[in-house]
């Protein structure tokens, strides 16, 4: 970023006062969005914390300060299993998505020559992001179901005799559809950090005798680390708040923290739901902090 102090404008009195003036204008401009975001972020966080200490009641809650909801959460096996399962799914989905999306970004960045074609392929990958995620989940149903297209094709060509039950309402199909539905969050950041790589660095590696594989592993992968971290960050935070894919494609057998929250609030158990919400935020923080060790998001943009 160029700064006024570094490139003084001759016609103006001095670079220093200009910088000060800019800073004052910036503070005025930034006030409105900052107040809005502080309020809209603060409201949900403060209210879930407050209500998580309320006393549960048959139909709702009573004001109070009890640890009951947290004790309930951490002493119930099913809740703890859900917590573990949420992380298990994250540990499976994130590497799977890297494996699925990295080659796409790599192909577009290094093998497609025409800038126009690059743009078209990237747009093809991004367009589904601007359509309804819910509809994309629903659209998987006729493909995956017991009588779905994939089963019909597999039976038609004689690979299997009976419809494969694993295609719908199972963990593998849930994980797979998550990976496809959120792929844009991964392809985008990886591609942008790849496109930033100076081609001369790659050439230098080749001149020094590195094989294509060494170049890939020792040059390209380390230089795309910020993109990978950004992609993982996006997918992780979206995954924590997701409840619909588990229901539609996972069949509701396997639940994650978000499902427990929705379920509790459906039963009007607001203090319990709030406790789950607080747990969700608390367990996300270390992961998010860890990811930020690998990327300075502000500098990447």
């Amino acid at each position, binding site marked *: 970023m160029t700064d006024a102090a570094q490139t003084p404008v001759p016609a103006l009195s001095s670079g220093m006062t200009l910088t000060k003036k800019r800073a004052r204008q910036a503070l005025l401009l930034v006030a409105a969005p900052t107040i809005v975001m*502080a309020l809209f972020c603060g409201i949900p966080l403060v209210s879930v914390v407050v209500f998580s200490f309320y006393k549960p009641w048959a139909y709702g809650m009573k004001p109070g300060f009890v640890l009951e909801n947290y004790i309930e959460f951490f002493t119930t096996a099913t809740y703890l299993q859900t917590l573990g399962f949420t992380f298990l799914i994250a540990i499976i989905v994130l590497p799977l998505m890297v494996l699925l999306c990295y080659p796409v970004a790599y*192909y577009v960045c290094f093998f497609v020559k025409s800038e126009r074609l690059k743009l078209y392929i990237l747009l093809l990958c991004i367009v589904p992001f601007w359509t309804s995620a819910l509809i994309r989940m629903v659209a998987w149903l006729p493909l995956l179901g017991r009588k779905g297209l994939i089963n019909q094709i597999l039976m038609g060509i004689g690979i299997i005799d009976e419809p494969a039950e694993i295609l719908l309402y199972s963990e593998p199909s849930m994980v797979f559809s998550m990976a496809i539905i959120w792929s844009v969050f991964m392809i985008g950041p990886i591609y942008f950090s790849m496109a930033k790589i100076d081609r001369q660095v790659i050439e230098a590696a080749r001149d020094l005798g590195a094989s294509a594989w060494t170049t890939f592993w020792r040059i390209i992968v380390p230089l795309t680390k910020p993109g990978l971290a950004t992609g993982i960050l996006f997918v992780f935070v979206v995954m924590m708040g997701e409840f619909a894919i588990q229901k539609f494609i996972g069949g509701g057998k396997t639940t994650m923290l978000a499902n427990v929250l929705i379920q509790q609030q459906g039963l009007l158990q607001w203090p319990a739901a709030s406790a789950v919400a607080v747990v969700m935020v608390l367990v996300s923080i270390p992961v998010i902090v860890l990811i930020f060790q690998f990327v300075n998001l502000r500098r990447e943009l």
Partner: protein
Amino acid sequence: MAEPTSYHVAKFGWVKIVLAIYVVLFVLMLYGPFIVMAILSFQGEDGGPTFPMQGTSIFWYERLFNPSGTARDIGEYVGDFGNAGLRSLVLALLVMCISTVLATMAAQAMRARFLGAGPIFYLYLVGIMIPGVTVGLGHALFWQGIGIDKHWLGTTLPVHILWTFPFCFIVMLTVFNRFDRSTEEAAMCLGANSWRTFWHITLPIMKPGIMASALFGFTLSFDEFARTVLVAGSQNTLPLDVLGATTIRITPRIFAVGVIITLISFAVIGIFGYLMTASRYRPRFRGQEEHQV
């Protein structure tokens, strides 16, 4: 430019071919479900939500616009997709305007260096970091606590802005960070004050970025459900009606809804794509090309 990547092609021609096939399969995986859904939405009257097709008809589209007919007989979700769609449209347009204006202000401010810019940047990102259902629950409990009824516009707008603003802001920031300041400085040297400089120089150059930000604002709000479901109250937005329709018996009608929502999305993307290319900064005079950014 020389061919810096040619070694890939020479030594690893097969890698290129394998990757090309993979990318085609990947794109098919992205769009395959849409295609299957579109075909099944024309399912015959007696057909179900899977193949084989029992003839073709526009029965399920008709049912969509005239739900009072036989919906109850076959245990289908009734829903009010037309009005829900209108509500979503109004909401998305409002969210788009508010978050784009806020994002433009924030990104313009972030170009200057001031105390607190770092924390403010991360505060904006918190909006997408908090899990969706937590946001929804927190806002819902807040409104409940102070005794305000939940509403599809009033109480839903804040959660949508919380979700769309960070994306709009990131889009604006990436555009602003690739922006050459010398054009603005030239205007200021010629005596324009900062407001005139912004209005006549910065804003026209930024137009494609603003369009991209508006596109994110609109589409993310139009399709949002994880945050909306707990704060919308009794009148549904379109994604909530879709969510409702999937909880009871699934019929090809849901695919008809899906096709229409997808077509709306494509139309919106098309409009913004057109506006973006049409609004790209073009020099008015010959010789000015050299100075454009």
